[in-house]
């Protein structure tokens, strides 16, 4: 891991010094080791603040959009899951391939910070962390702890199919092996949900959506949500004078509308980076929604997870004669 960090700093410093990129978007230490923060290095000196560890959860791809109307070239650090977001933005014509240098990190999985803290002590200060392959070693002010990956990975990492970036210009480390049997997702959690009767499903989502604060963090962090202006923020949508898409009142009915529209919008486009669920301040199981559409798209249109390569057509915007008509 130390090697990755060294390589990252070297590469970033080189790119910045040579003037190849104006900025390297990566991670730096935040509040503590377990709270890394997005970091924007603009010179060689700042490049030395960049870091990498199994707490680097943020998907940094979204930040490219802040620069989409400029002409500078940028470098961005991505994990396997995030890298699909690069393909998303390129496919959606939101960021040109030639303006981004992708610094790929092979990622052995991310540690679930809350689980770790719950095990040690919620007040503990985490000082360093090391990925040893099957386990993580975390040094804290309470001593050293070892966490088996099986139990302490973020949920999305436990079923990860893409530990290696699917698109990258510089790979900062050795590619990680992927076991054959891990290559297909069985969607157990979704199947379980589908099996419930309508009333039970309804009760489940009512409870979760009822507490949605409509902070829009899920939307703002999502690389598939890349519209210049969000329909939910248009006081007067052009084609529908005087009517709002959605009331600002965060009641359960409006919240349903918000989440269902967003869900439908990312159908066939969601790359399952899991950021929406991570950022949700009220723990709404959003991946249960978005993974459902991934599963359905796979079943109906035979597509794999979106974002694996740039050329993927979008199943809902392209017509094929063999498309199913199960609803008729």
């Amino acid at each position, binding site marked *: 891991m130390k090697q990755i960090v060294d390589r990252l700093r070297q590469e970033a410093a080189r790119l910045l010094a040579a003037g190849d990129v104006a900025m390297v978007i990566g991670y730096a230490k935040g509040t503590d080791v377990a709270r890394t923060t997005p970091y924007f290095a603009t010179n060689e000196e700042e490049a030395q603040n960049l870091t990498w560890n199994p707490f680097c959860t943020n998907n940094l791809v979204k930040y490219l959009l802040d620069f989409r109307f400029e002409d500078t070239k940028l470098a961005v650090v991505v994990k396997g899951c995030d890298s699909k977001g690069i393909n998303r933005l390129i496919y959606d014509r939101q960021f040109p391939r030639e303006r981004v240098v992708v610094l790929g990190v092979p990622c052995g999985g991310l540690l679930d910070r809350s689980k770790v803290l719950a095990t040690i002590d919620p007040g503990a200060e985490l000082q360093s962390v090391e990925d040893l392959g099957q386990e993580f070693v975390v040094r804290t002010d309470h001593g050293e702890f070892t966490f088996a990956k099986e139990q302490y990975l973020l949920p999305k990492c436990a079923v990860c199919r893409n530990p290696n970036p699917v698109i990258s210009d510089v790979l900062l480390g050795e590619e990680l092996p992927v076991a054959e049997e891990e290559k297909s997702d069985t969607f157990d959690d979704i199947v379980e949900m589908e099996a419930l009767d309508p009333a039970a499903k*309804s009760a489940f989502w009512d409870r979760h959506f009822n507490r949605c604060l409509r902070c829009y963090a899920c939307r703002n962090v999502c690389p598939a949500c890349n519209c210049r202006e969000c329909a939910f923020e248009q006081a007067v949508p052009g084609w529908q004078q005087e009517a709002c898409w959605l009331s600002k009142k965060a009641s359960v009915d409006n919240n349903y509308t918000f989440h269902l529209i967003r869900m439908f919008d990312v159908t066939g486009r969601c790359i399952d980076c899991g950021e929406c669920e991570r950022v949700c301040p009220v723990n709404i199981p959003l991946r249960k929604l978005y993974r*459902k559409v991934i599963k359905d798209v796979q079943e109906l249109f035979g597509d794999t997870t979106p974002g694996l390569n740039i050329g993927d057509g979008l199943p809902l915007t392209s017509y094929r004669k063999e498309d199913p008509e199960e609803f008729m």
Partner: protein
Amino acid sequence: MFKRLMEYVGFEPERFEVRWISGSEGGKVVETAIEMAEKIKALGPNRKMRDAK
């Protein structure tokens, strides 16, 4: 897709239907509407996504 999603969040499957009806098939429109109306009457009013008040 949409029907699957509606069902997933707890709408009864019968509440949403799509039919392919040509402009010359007036009778089919009526039939479908009646059929649909009966199904929905049997289900009762939709409580979902209504304001709690």
